[in-house]
């Protein structure tokens, strides 16, 4: 569903992503780990078409993001570290707008409330102004949007950063639910614990390179923190 083929992006002679090759299948949750500046967010930006690659291709559902930007966005949902919404509108109104932008303007209030409920947002908050929402509540509106859009792929950029453990756990449950529905998830994160908990595969990124991948049993049995530190220190020494 998500595919990077020799994807390269440089900013002012600094290589942010260097010949990245990555393929994420439907139902997979891919945890992209790495320190600040490793190229995780740039990878997500490339899948969203927010920036142009220097070389290589980012594909969503087999479509080149640069060639078919609107079609690929129909398949995608995106949840950044801070889900920004219109402060003067309610969660319900925000969801109505974003789903309408995504081409799903046929939903009624009941449908939208259903999505917010599935995402775990309490009913009393649906019609409250977003300016009163916590970060976790806004993340839930983002998840509701992914559900309403019937997204085939989900891009997450540090989604659990700043969430309390309970909200973080709740978020992991939601991701597992989406994974079961066949949604391909790419989650850029520093949170090794959450990655190990929810991801079906993780990749370690450093200076734009994907330096290591772990999946299945390898991931379950691994001391992810040790491997992470080993690679990051090794990369620094190298």
């Amino acid at each position, binding site marked *: 569903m998500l595919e990077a083929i020799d994807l390269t992006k440089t*900013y002012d002679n600094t290589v942010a992503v260097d010949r990245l090759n990555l393929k994420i299948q439907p139902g997979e949750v891919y945890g992209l780990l790495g320190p600040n500046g490793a190229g995780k967010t*740039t990878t997500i*930006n490339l899948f*969203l*078409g*927010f*920036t*142009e690659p220097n070389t290589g291709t980012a594909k969503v559902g087999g479509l080149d993001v640069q060639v078919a*930007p*609107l*079609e690929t*966005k*129909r398949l*995608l*949902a*995106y949840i*950044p570290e*801070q*889900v*920004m*919404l*219109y402060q*003067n*509108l309610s969660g319900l*109104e925000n969801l109505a*707008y*974003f789903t*309408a*932008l*995504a*081409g799903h*303007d046929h939903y009624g209030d009941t449908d939208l409330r259903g999505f917010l409920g599935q995402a775990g947002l309490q009913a009393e908050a649906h019609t409250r102004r977003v300016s009163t929402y916590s970060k976790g509540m806004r993340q839930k509106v983002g998840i509701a949007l992914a559900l309403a859009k019937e997204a085939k792929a989900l891009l997450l950029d540090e989604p659990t950063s700043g969430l309390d453990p309970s909200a973080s756990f709740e978020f992991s449950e939601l991701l597992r639910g989406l994974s079961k529905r066949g949604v391909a998830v790419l989650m850029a994160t520093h949170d090794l614990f959450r990655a190990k908990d929810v991801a079906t595969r993780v990749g370690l990124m450093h200076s734009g390179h994907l330096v290591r991948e772990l999946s299945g049993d390898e991931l379950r049995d691994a001391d992810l923190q040790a491997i992470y530190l080993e690679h990051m220190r090794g990369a620094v020494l190298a």
Partner: protein
Amino acid sequence: MLKTILRFEAKLLRADGTALLTAGVFLALIGYAGYVGIQYADEQQAVLETHAAQYAERIAGIRQEVVEMEAEMIRKGEALDTKVELGRRHPYMVGSAQGRVITLMPGPLSPFAVGQSDLQPNALRVTMGGSQALGGAASLENPFKLLVGHFDLAFVFVFLFPLLILALTFGLTASERETGLLRMVLAQPVRLTTLAAGKVMVRAVLLFACAVLGTGAVLLMTGANGGGGRWLLWLLVVFIYGGFWMALAAFVDSRVQRPVTGGLVLAVCWLAFVVVIPALINVVASTLYPVPSRMEYVTAMRTETSVAQQQGAASLAQFFDDHPELASVEADEADYAMLRVARDERIAEALAPVEARFAAQKARQQQFIRSLGYLSPAVLAQQAFLDLADTGHARYAAFTATVEALHTDWKAYFVPKYFAGLAFRPSDYDAVPAFTFSDFSTVDVLKRMAGPLTALVLISALLGMVAYRRYTRTTLIA
């Protein structure tokens, strides 16, 4: 997609109170300016009607007196077509003492723009000696008001309307870019150009609806007076002028990352286009084409008047040299009326070069301002608004030219009568030169506006196209 954005943007403007506040302020400004304009126009209309009525009454009275005098003369068996002394029956009574009072009545949209109506004479008395402006309550204007102008609808639309547009549009997409909201929006299948277009359209509809409602109400309060066509053209100018500011806001928004930067750039643009450039154009026009000082003119007039009075006989001799067809009168037979004609002509001849230089320099200044007006949309809009309200330079220039033509006809008609010295009969009242001013039609005004408005549309289209290209090529991350 556009429909979704329009619907949502309207909701968003409603939710944060921006729409209500802007619309309220705009309608209040229009309401107050309309009230000021209607008051001024009503007052002016009343003064002009008074002048016209008083003149008609005076002339009718004198004519009636002459009729009665002639009836008495007939009764006494006296001849009517004889030479007369200065008095009720002398042509001087109509040609110089009364003259003809002419008024330039306000147009149907005059309450919309005071324009030059507080500077130029709207009522004149044309006599053998020339034309003099008639005063009235409306002409006794506060000098400060003359300097800064009236708070009328033209002021609201030329100066304040752009500020309202900029207040609503300065952070079109830049504010969402700054907060990160734009990432959420553009993660949906929507183009930045569509989003920006939707935002501009909602704001345009809101402000234009206020302009239609507000000015429509003012028009109805004036009684419309057949000004419907002018009003529609006024709205066209509002639309085009507003379109320029919207296009400029989009152009700036497409090039900045932060709304505060965009706001600052637009504020500077407003200052430049609305205040600085028009002022500079005026300064440069006065510097390049300076008009002779009014002091010089007044001094020359006094000197010539004094000389002409002292040399009454010499002036008359000179006059007969210039008009041999009237030289049947001996200098010692000349009466006051004849001497006055000779004196006026001598003064007019002496002042003609100064007046010609003044007129030529003024014309050059106007031409210069017309040409350089293209540097400022505010100047173009102002000219269009004044033209539509019949208070612009063109109408007063045409009016002045018609008055001058009447003055020439007046002299041509009365000078032979003065020198013949024959009685001015009641039937002669109907034969004096008439004043016919063919006012500009709406089509004339439209023709004059077409060039500037087309230029404004082209500039706006260019800005819009550049903004469109920029939005199309913008990536959220450089």
